[in-house]
């Protein structure tokens, strides 16, 4: 038996497989947890203070990690990252760019001209820009850079350019900076190489930040950097994250990569110096750009953008995201300034402005032959628009009339003119004017009462006849005068279709019309009819007169009908609220009535009712019309009257009604129309009854439904007291009902329904639970973050489904778009002297940043700049986008808040500076250089600082001392002259305090009549005639209004770094060889003997003074009176001898005594020394003895202790 037992198979613990893993995991988990249980003391609270400290620390660290959450505004498709390659000359910048481009795109580039954009990855594009050594370029590029590759020649070390660039970056917002060491192959010794690397690295870290990335490019192979190293650098670049910089995220900007001169060649030929119109292309960065905004081009100046439009991306990101890497086709390279990517560019139809006739031909070809089909296809415009476009010619060969002429559009209209030179459409402003009959209409329409329209129309009918006759006469005369100058209608039409985003307003209407067309298929027949007419008219105008008439009249009728209905239910749609709109509509009708007195039966009468109702429906869907109403091209109140209208009518006198409108009462109150009769209880009151809490609620918010929902959730409960069980209204009952209903119709799966219901209920319960329990943890920070997140989502969602053309009008051009900006009147030098090596940047300006004013800034001379700066010496500042020369005044704030003018900046301190310059938001940094011309050996950046204030009242003052002389002295009163010139001046300073050089204080009392400018003043003490009186005053200094933009880009090629502005006084003197003539008063000269009058002190004061400060009474005694004079003693010769001998003897005695004393003194000194030594020895002895004693005592003590310790167990 035993043996059997022994033979039993032993348990074999698993060492591998899922079981073993499970066990291991279990053990691991348990041990960790057990530690706490096993050793509770170790985890117990030892010290409350310490606990609090650790807690605080943990919280501090946690909170430090928080940043203020910002709404995420990064565009979905961001613009290419701007990588600026900086470094002193001959350091390998171009080579590096070439290598990187080759690395990413497998293409070789020759000269790096202008920005080079490449697709580097699935989600990233890069724009490389080389920065030359010119400080202008460095400043400009530092403002737009996302990443800076800072090349450093390791064989040489750091050069000033590097530090200058770093300093520029610090001022304008710090982009990411990566250092690249080149020329490392010049080191033969490995140790020195290592040392140099380390030194450079640490110096670089102190400038950028600890641990900033520094790349080493060791050696060149066939004139290129090593492939592996470049690849590594490329990887770093393509995964780098960027920080948003304040200035960049708040301003739109474009780094221009293409420039086209659009100026009329003929104009250039005749006047080579004429201002040019250029279009500049580039990716939009920063924030949204509004059309027609203001931009600054650093190095050129401020410009108004005349037009912006976006183009298809010339260097798009790949579409498909599945793949891991880009294929060769997707590795795009775009550098138009370097002449690369041009072919793609042409193919890509960036030349969107195709000539109109070309497009037209294409369209003709595909056009269906049947007119009906054609008309159906061509329904591009609503009736409204068509009416506006339709034209009537009254007589063959006469000028066509279109309703825009007839309508009173009292403003300049824009006319699309094809400009063959620029190959694009231009918007010319055409001024029209009102017609003579108009005042009657406008007068009537100005009356708010819309119901009176009908009667008006009847009235107008009476006027028709004479109106018509004058009208016809006029037209005839005109037709004779003018040859047939029909506008090229067809071309215009085509252009309208093709150039979708030629202009914002037109565009808006276009899109509306198109959308309307899509939506309203039912209306197609009607509008198709109109368009057909339109079409034919363009082909042959004379033929289809009848048809046109009919059509126009139909529209008239239609609108009349519309108006009538409108008058009834006007309140039901917003359209009706505007009296402006009515104005237009009304006059429209009138014109047509005049033109075509009703006659005969025509085919247009068919289906009139239907048309009218359609029109009504259309207007009821007033959404696009509302947009048009607000932003449409109408309602320009601000135009001058012009004499002619459409080549037909002449204005006889100015319209009073219009003026009235322009000068109406400015009141925000919305006077309600009287159409609502609130006395009609049932109708009106019911219409708003649901606006109140007492009214009917929506399904989702109704109290009953909510209650029901609650019941479903919490219905089941058991009343514990009574033991009653309440059953909630679960799905069963409903299901029964449902089933009954549905069984008759379809067989529905019961289970599924129930399951869904259960799931639904569960979900709702969970939501409720989540809402209750998750709220507890949410901190303020989390809430804020969530809010921002929501806002970001909302921002994205709002315009997501809108097409770009419309979207651009609302939110402006998005960053990431490839835009084309047209700027007119740019100086011709910009085009003539264009050098692609210099960056052209378009910096968008904020609303008030286009203005110039006074700025107060805080400024500090740079530590490394060798000289201090002088007030009123011109200085070149880089502030915002701009670089400009200005004249600063330096000042410092006194303790009482006064800004005192300084002649020079302090050496190591901040001081204030006031300038006249472009208004820039507060808190913007700036830097100053004294000259941008050439390269100097020393550090170029003179000062840095920040804008503090934009106050326009200047408060800098300088001290002014006015000097006067007393000419009459009474007791404490003086008459003083020479300080002022007139009585008036004195009057201004009455009561001012004055002082003498000796410190006697006084006050100006009143002016004296003669001599002019003299005044009476009182002092605290009597003055002397020799005193000088001065008045210390503060004189406000005005800031010189010099604002001189640095126009470095306009200089000829090769001289762009030679911009020289206003010279400083020192330079001027140096250049002109002028030596300063010093003021004679300021020269040092020997002191002139003056009369010194002793000051007298009161006796009492003298008494109270300590002896040291008492005036010494050592004045010469003067002559003693005769009676006090003593007679002088004259000795006899013998006496004299005796005295001499005595004197000699005493001298000898004195000498002996002195000698003896010295000997005695020396002896005593020796004695004292000896005594000291003895004393010291004695002390030493005593100390040793004491030491011995203590040692013995200590030993004894220890013995005693030991024995006592030993003794204790013995005792036990």
């Amino acid at each position, binding site marked *: 038996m035993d043996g059997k037992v022994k033979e039993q198979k032993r348990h074999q613990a698993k060492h591998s497989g899922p079981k073993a893993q499970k066990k291991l995991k279990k053990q691991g988990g348990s041990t960790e947890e057990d530690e706490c249980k096993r050793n509770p003391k170790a985890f117990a609270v030892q010290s409350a203070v310490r606990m609090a400290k650790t807690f605080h620390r943990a919280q501090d660290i946690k909170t430090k990690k928080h940043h203020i959450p910002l*709404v995420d505004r990064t565009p979905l498709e961001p613009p290419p990252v701007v990588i600026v390659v900086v470094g002193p000359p001959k350091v390998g910048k171009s080579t590096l760019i070439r290598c990187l481009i080759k690395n990413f795109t497998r293409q070789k580039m020759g000269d790096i001209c202008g920005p080079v954009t490449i697709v580097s990855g699935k989600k990233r594009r890069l724009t490389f820009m080389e920065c030359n050594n010119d400080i202008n370029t460095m400043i400009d590029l530092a403002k737009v850079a996302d990443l800076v590759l800072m090349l450093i020649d390791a064989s040489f070390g750091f050069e000033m350019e590097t530090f200058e660039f770093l300093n520029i970056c610090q001022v304008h917002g710090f982009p990411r900076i990566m250092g690249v060491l080149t020329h490392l192959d010049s080191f033969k010794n490995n140790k020195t190489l290592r040392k140099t690397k380390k030194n450079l690295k640490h110096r670089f870290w102190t400038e950028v930040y600890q641990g900033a990335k520094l790349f080493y490019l060791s050696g060149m192979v066939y004139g290129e950097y090593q492939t592996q190293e470049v690849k590594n650098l490329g990887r770093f670049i393509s995964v780098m994250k960027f920080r948003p910089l304040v200035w960049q995220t708040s301003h739109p900007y474009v780094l221009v990569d293409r420039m086209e001169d659009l100026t009329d060649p003929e104009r250039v030929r005749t006047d080579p110096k004429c201002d040019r119109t250029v279009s500049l292309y580039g990716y939009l960065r920063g*924030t*949204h750009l*509004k059309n027609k905004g*203001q931009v600054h081009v650093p190095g050129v100046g*401020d410009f*108004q953008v005349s037009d912006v439009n976006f183009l298809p991306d010339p260097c798009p990101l790949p579409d498909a995201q599945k793949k891991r890497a880009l294929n060769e086709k997707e590795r795009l390279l775009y550098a138009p300034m370097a002449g690369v990517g041009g072919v793609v560019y042409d193919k890509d139809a960036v030349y969107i402005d195709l000539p109109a006739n070309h497009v037209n031909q294409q369209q003709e070809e595909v056009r269906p032959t049947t007119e009906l089909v054609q008309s159906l296809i061509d329904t591009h415009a609503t009736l409204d628009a068509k009416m506006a476009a339709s034209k009537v010619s009254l007589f063959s060969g006469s000028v066509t009339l279109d309703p825009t002429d007839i309508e009173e559009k009292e403003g300049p209209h824009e006319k699309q003119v094809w400009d063959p030179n620029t190959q694009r459409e231009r918007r010319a402003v055409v001024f029209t004017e009102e017609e003579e009959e108009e005042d009657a209409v406008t007068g009537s329409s100005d009356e708010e009462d819309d119901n009176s329209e009908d009667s008006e129309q009847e009235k107008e009918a009476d006027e028709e006849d004479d109106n018509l006759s004058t009208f016809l006469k006029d037209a005839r005369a005109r037709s004779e005068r003018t040859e047939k100058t029909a506008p090229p209608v067809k071309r215009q039409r085509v252009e309208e279709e093709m150039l979708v985003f030629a202009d914002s307003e037109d565009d808006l209407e276009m899109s509306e019309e198109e959308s309307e067309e899509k939506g309203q298929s039912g209306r197609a027949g009607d509008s198709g009819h109109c368009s057909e007419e339109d079409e034919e008219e363009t082909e042959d105008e004379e033929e289809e007169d009848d048809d046109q008439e009919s059509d126009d009249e139909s529209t008239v009728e239609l609108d009349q009908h519309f108006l009538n209905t409108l008058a009834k239910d006007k309140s*039901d*749609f*917003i359209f009706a609220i*505007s009296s*402006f709109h009515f104005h237009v509509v009304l006059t429209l009708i009138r014109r047509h009535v005049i033109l075509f007195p009703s006659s005969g039966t025509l085919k247009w009468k068919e289906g009139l009712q239907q048309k009218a109702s359609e029109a009504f429906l259309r207007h009821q*869907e*007033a*959404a696009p019309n*509302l*947009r048009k109403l*607000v*932003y449409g091209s109408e309602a320009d*109140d*601000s*135009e001058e009257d012009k004499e002619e209208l459409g080549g037909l009518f002449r204005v006889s006198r100015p319209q*009073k009604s219009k*003026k009235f*409108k322009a*000068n*109406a009462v*400015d*009141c*925000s*109150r*919305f006077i*309600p129309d009287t159409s609502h009769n*609130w006395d009609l*209880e049932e109708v*009106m009151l*019911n219409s*708003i*009854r*649901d606006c*109140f*809490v*007492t*009214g009917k*609620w*929506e399904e989702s918010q109704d109290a009953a439904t909510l209650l029901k929902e609650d019941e479903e959730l919490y219905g089941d409960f058991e009343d514990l007291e009574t033991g009653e069980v309440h059953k909630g209204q679960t799905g069963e009952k409903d299901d029964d009902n449902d089933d009954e209903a549905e069984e008759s119709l379809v067989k529905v799966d019961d289970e599924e329904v129930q399951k869904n219901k259960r799931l639904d209920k569960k979900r709702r319960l969970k939501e409720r639970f989540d809402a209750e329990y998750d709220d507890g943890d949410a901190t303020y920070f989390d809430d804020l973050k969530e809010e921002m997140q929501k*806002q970001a989502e909302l*921002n994205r969602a*709002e315009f997501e489904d809108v097409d770009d053309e419309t979207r651009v*009008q*609302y939110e402006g051009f998005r960053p990431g778009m490839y835009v084309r900006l047209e700027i007119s009147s740019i100086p011709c030098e910009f085009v003539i002297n264009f050098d692609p090596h210099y960056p052209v940047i378009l910096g968008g300006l904020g*609303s*008030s*940043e*286009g*203005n110039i*004013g006074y700025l107060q800034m805080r400024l500090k001379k740079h530590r490394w700049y060798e000289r201090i700066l002088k007030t009123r010496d011109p200085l070149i500042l880089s502030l915002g986008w701009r670089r400009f020369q200005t004249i600063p005044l330096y000042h410092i704030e006194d303790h009482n808040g006064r800004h005192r003018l300084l002649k020079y900046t302090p050496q190591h301190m901040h001081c204030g500076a006031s300038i006249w310059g472009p208004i820039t938001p507060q808190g913007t940094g700036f830097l100053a250089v004294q000259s941008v011309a050439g390269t100097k050996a020393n550090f170029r950046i003179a000062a840095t600082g920040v804008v503090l204030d*934009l*106050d*326009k009242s200047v408060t800098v003052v300088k001290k002014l001392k006015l000097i006067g002389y007393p000419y009459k002295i009474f007791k404490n009163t003086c008459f003083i002259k020479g300080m002022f010139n007139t009585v008036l001046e004195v009057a201004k300073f009455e009561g001012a305090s004055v002082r003498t050089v000796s410190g006697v204080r006084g006050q100006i009392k009143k002016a004296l009549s003669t001599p002019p400018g003299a005044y009476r003043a009182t002092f605290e003490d009597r003055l002397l005639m020799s005193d000088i009186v001065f008045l210390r005053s503060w004189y406000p200094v005005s800031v010189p209004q010099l604002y001189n933009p640095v126009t470095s880009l306009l200089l000829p090629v090769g001289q762009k770094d030679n911009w020289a502005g206003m010279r400083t006084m020192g330079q001027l003197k140096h250049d002109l060889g002028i030596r300063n003539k010093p003021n004679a008063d300021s020269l040092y000269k020997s002191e002139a003997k003056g009369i010194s009058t002793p000051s007298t002190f009161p006796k009492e004061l003298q008494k109270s003074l300590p002896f040291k400060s008492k005036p010494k009474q050592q004045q010469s005694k003067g002559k003693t009176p005769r009676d006090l004079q003593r007679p002088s003693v004259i000795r006899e010769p013998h006496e004299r001898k005796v005295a001499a001998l005595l004197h000699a003897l005493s001298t000898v005695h004195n000498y002996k005594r002195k000698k003896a004393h010295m000997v005695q003194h020396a002896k005593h000194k020796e004695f004292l020394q000896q005594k000291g030594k003895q004393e010291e020895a004695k002390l030493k002895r005593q100390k040793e003895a004491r030491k011995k004693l203590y040692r013995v005592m200590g030993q004894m003590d220890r013995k005693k202790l030991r024995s006592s310790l030993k003794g204790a167990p013995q005792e036990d």
Partner: protein
Amino acid sequence: MASQGLVYDGCNFFRQRLVLSTLSGKRVKIKNIRSKDDDPGLRDFEASFIRLLDKVTNGSRIEINQTGTVLFYQPGLLYGGSVEHDCNQQRSIGYYLEALLMLAPFMKTSLKATLRGVTNDPVDPTVDLLKSTALPVMKKFGIGGDGFELKVVKRGMAPGGGGEVVFTCPVCRTMRPVQLTDPGKIKRIRGVAYSVRVSPQMANRIVESARGVLNQFLPDIYIHTDHMKGANSGKSPGFGLTLVAETLNGFFLSAEMSSTPQGQGNPVLPEDLGRNCAKLLLEEIHRGGCVDSSNQSLALLLMTLGQQDVSKVLLGPLSPYTIEFLRHIRDFFQIMFKIEVQKPFEDERKGGDKVPQPR
């Protein structure tokens, strides 16, 4: 400098232009101000308004030609501070205050404006109306906190005036983006019936009649009477009523009516005034929206000047003033609003269409 100003014709929407010019920093030139009028040029109240602008700004340049028909305005910096202004009595303080409400949050230092003149007249929004509607609108945008209030110290009816209003507003760095799309239902109606230099019974009569109309909808109506006496009652007699309807979501719709100024037009019976005012309120409710018609432009301005985020506001029918304001915003800020029309549901009876306006 390349920044050209904007040029306008005529004195209509005078305030809008100057206010927007001040806020945007764009200079503006207004020509032909009543040039064909018998009495050409700027009126006194407009001159007074310009003076007020000059007081709250620093460094504005204003040039007016000899006849007063051309005005050139180069705005300065909005400075704020303590300002006292005697408003011209041709227009009520509301005329000036509306502009000041738009400017106040964007000042450099917090504003404390004391305005004297006519507090209530039938033309402009009265001070009471602005207090009860404009301030809540601004609060929705995050303006407010300590010292954001409008106090009617003395009441002065047209034409004599003699009222005094103190408006204080702190500086607001950033506007909050808002989504005011659901007005909610009206839960209560409040109001002020004021009377000065007439029998205090007038106010009670107004309240009586107004309640008569409004009680059909809501029981929660409280109109309190405000009878000012002595020095606080201004120089002219008059009475009026301001009604405010508050919705569940904290929006305010308002209507008001004042008696005709003494010596101008027919006198009004207080009962009629109360009833008409109540009807005006119903009209306003019929129009609906989250912001009532007199503050539409204020809300739109605050949306414009906020951050780049999308804001939405549901408005009733746009008033002509607002429409012009939208155009001006486009001129000055190059900002267009996306305007959609919200259709009422079939079974709902909530008045006219509403216009939400995201930007």
